[in-house]
């Protein structure tokens, strides 16, 4: 088709003159005709930054990925939409600015026929229209960082209800996880029992030294607080064996109902409760284990339907570690970035988002599929603040500080070639758990934070937790700045509280808007506090909306 907008320019440079789009000259305009790199297109041509600046000054909404169609008289619409949005060069100021930048403007009076806007057959409807304007967000983080909770909260907030299949998948996941938690406890119990008996034996030997006897055998006392009866030991051996063989999913959740009473009995057994007291040493036991083991009978029944709380507490979203995604729309208007225009009659536009959550299990150094996400608008990286004193097994099996592992994963993702130009938003999660912990366990147990030396609390009115939070945020920001020449956006949250999720997504929306603007608007320098937010910022947001 023969649709020209600007002609008479040197290929690769900004345009020189406006010509009617109806001229049958030469063929379709090449997208790279002006060497534009703005990802905004006019009549098929990617425009230059200068032209984009003019569009923005003319109050044209043009986020990345927009394709416009412009007519002879300067009126414009989004390709294929058949709704004239306005006229680009309507205002005298716009025309003035164009002439300042040596950009052409259409003649005042355009004689001749006005192209019939309602004749779609004269234009191609491009295939990208389907994906137009969907802002894709990639959500990820280590196991336990809260990324799956955030996804599920977003689904409750903005998405449709969980389908029957999704509910079934989560139910099966919860049920089989019950046995996973149990196996971790039982293995821990065995280990603690071995250690306790070993210690007892040693004490027994020393005791006997003062009374040497002919009998070399010390009567073995085979019980301690971690010992269980023969029947439960039988079950324990069996369960631990199938877990070691990788056959857990061959038996569970299928046999869940059958073994539910045993689960209950074991969980209430004093030996297991003693083991559970030392859960800080059981590194792979998640915090939610106790919550589900307490309701083992209920969870194991056939009629069990996970409550909203159960869903949020459950680890993961699907039972097969596949990725999950969710589409939703948010209003574009916010008091922060859009000053009041006095035009109350214009409808608030919405932007479609696609939130994609990937499991951290596949995210190792040589990740083979992350490049499939090079078109995402932002990476949302989740870290649990309360991980600073937790240990976690590396791929090789040996234990490492979990916060350090999060840092390593963060570095891997930031350095990935697909995300060279992608803004990163860091969500520092589980602030409430962190707050409780920080007074008892110093931040310095994590070697990355070994230089944390807080000012004595009574000199400032900041709590220790707040102080520590900012310290961690700065650590990540410095790390990010050392890896690329951009600034990291940081947001504090408690993923189990739905309001903070809503605030987080509004913050992300602002980040994306700013990212769109920053290339053109010299004055779009953000206040430093925008880069690091905490609860006070989200309060501010809530007041104004």
């Amino acid at each position: 088709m023969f649709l020209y907008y600007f002609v008479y320019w040197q290929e690769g440079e900004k345009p020189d003159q406006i010509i009617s789009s109806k001229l049958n000259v030469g063929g379709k305009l090449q997208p790279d005709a002006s060497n534009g790199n703005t990802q905004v297109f006019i009549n098929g041509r990617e425009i230059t930054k200068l032209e984009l600046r003019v569009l923005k000054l003319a109050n044209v909404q043009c986020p990345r990925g927009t394709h416009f169609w412009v007519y002879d008289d300067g009126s414009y619409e989004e390709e294929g939409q058949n709704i004239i949005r306005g006229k680009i060069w309507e205002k005298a100021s716009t025309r003035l600015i164009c002439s300042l930048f040596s950009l052409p403007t259409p003649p005042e009076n355009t004689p001749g026929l006005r192209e019939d806007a309602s004749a779609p057959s004269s234009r191609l409807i491009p295939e990208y229209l389907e994906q137009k304007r969907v802002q894709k967000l990639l959500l990820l983080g280590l196991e336990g960082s809260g990324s799956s909770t955030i996804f599920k909260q977003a689904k409750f907030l903005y998405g449709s209800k969980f389908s029957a299949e999704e509910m079934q998948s989560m139910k099966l996941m919860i049920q089989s996880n019950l046995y996973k938690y149990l196996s971790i406890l039982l293995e821990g119990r065995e280990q603690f029992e071995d250690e306790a008996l070993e210690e007892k034996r040693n004490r027994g030997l020393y005791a006997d030294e003062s009374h040497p006897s002919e009998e070399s055998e010390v009567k073995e006392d085979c019980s301690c607080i971690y010992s269980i009866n023969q029947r439960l030991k039988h079950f324990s051996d069996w369960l631990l064996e199938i877990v070691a063989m990788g056959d857990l999913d061959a038996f569970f959740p299928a046999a869940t109902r059958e073994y539910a009473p045993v689960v209950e009995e074991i969980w209430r057994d004093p030996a297991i409760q003693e083991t559970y007291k030392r859960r800080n040493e059981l590194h792979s036991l998640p915090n939610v284990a106790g919550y589900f083991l307490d309701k083992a009978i209920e969870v194991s029944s056939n009629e069990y339907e996970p409550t909203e709380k159960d869903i949020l507490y459950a680890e993961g979203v699907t039972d097969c570690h596949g990725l999950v995604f969710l589409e939703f729309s948010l209003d574009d208007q916010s008091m922060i970035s859009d000053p009041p225009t006095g035009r109350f009659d214009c409808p608030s536009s919405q932007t479609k988002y696609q939130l994609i959550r990937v499991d951290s299990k596949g995210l190792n150094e040589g990740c083979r599929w992350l490049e499939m996400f090079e078109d995402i608008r932002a990476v949302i990286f989740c870290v649990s603040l309360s991980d600073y004193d937790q240990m976690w097994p590396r791929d090789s099996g040996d234990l490492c500080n979990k916060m350090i592992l999060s840092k390593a994963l963060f570095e891997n993702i930031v350095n990935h070639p697909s995300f060279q130009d992608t803004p990163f938003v860091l969500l520092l999660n589980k602030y409430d758990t962190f707050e409780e912990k920080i007074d008892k366990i110093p931040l310095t147990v994590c070697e990355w934070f070994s230089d944390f030396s807080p000012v004595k609390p009574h000199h400032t009115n900041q709590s220790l937790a707040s102080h520590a939070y900012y310290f961690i945020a700065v650590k990540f920001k410095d790390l990010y700045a050392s890896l690329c020449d951009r600034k990291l956006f940081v947001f504090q949250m408690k993923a189990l509280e739905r309001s903070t999720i809503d605030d987080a997504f509004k913050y992300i929306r602002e980040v994306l808007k700013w990212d769109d603007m920053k290339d053109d608007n010299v004055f779009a320098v953000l206040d430093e506090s925008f880069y690091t937010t905490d609860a006070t910022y989200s309060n501010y947001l809530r007041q104004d909306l």
Partner: protein
Amino acid sequence: MSVAELKKRHVAAMETVDALRERVKQKRQLLLDTDVKSYAKSQGTTPISFGSTDLVCCRTLLGHTGKVYSLDWTPERNRIVSVALDGRLIVWNALTSQKTHAIKLNCPWMRACAFAPNGQSVACGGLDSACSIFNLTSQVDKDGNIPIARVLTGHKGYVFSCQYVPDQETRLITGSGDHTCVLWDVTTGQRISVFGGELPSGHTADVLSVSINSSNSNMFVSGSCDATARLWDTRKASRAVQTFHGHGGDVNSVKFFPDGQRFGTGSDDGTCRLFDMRTGHQLQVYTRQHDANDNDVPIVTSIAFSISGRLFFAGYSNGDCYVWDTLVAEVVLNLGTLQNSHEGRISCLGLAADGSALCTGSWDKNLKIWAFGGHRKVI
């Protein structure tokens, strides 16, 4: 026995295994007195003469709006199925370039697709950690889409590769990011066997590629990010028959040689290798000429053998598609330099069942069909 004692014994056992492996490796090096190229040269074999008119791009299949990740031919008739990042599974008539089906997928992040032996179903798998089966003869729904006939779930990681067992409509093998391969019964959706995983001798990293022996469909080979290829017997899932070391990086592609006695591999280390099934030897390494200007060696993304095996085709990440003379280990043609070649990475390629055409798929969103021209029909 206490946990601590068990751990000690485990460490000692692993050390013994490592020492034994090293001894096997050294013995193998002693036995390997020559490779294919040296032997062929000593017999006076000359490189096959292959000119730029011998293999021409005769069709470009346009239609995908995202990077193409996988393709497969039907065993009979000239149809191709392809999957791309646009979330579509397209079935093409290779002779006419027409699309016979364009299936919209629920999950657009797909990595693998395969045609069933009878040509009536297609399978695809990817980041949804499942393999979805579509029956091409079924009625379309109100949106014009073919409904999913079955979903094979059970993998605990992403699906990177899938292939139907050649003479059995109802069986399919997948390779996954959970380090296992699985043999499925498509009619029931059940897993028949799991190869690898917690069991010893399984892969220790993502499985990227599988290839079933067409001469003996009980045997298949898998390639993985652990830089090895492993040979499996479907009748005995408990351990791999053989592990093939040699590559210096992820093995992206494995393909059986036409006679089923050996297989080829392509890797992130930029080389292709030919391995012998029975002896386990590495028969030949196919290394590109190193570009002096380029620090990045292009990786091999996919390989396929010609019908006699005298040639094999290797697609690279920089858009090159080398035609190698298997015997003499020389490149006889680079499809990437021909007219009409792809403008991006070659992500997948495959030969038609009768060997008369090669199809390549690329990140430039297109597929191309190359046919043997001139006096030469098929090699």
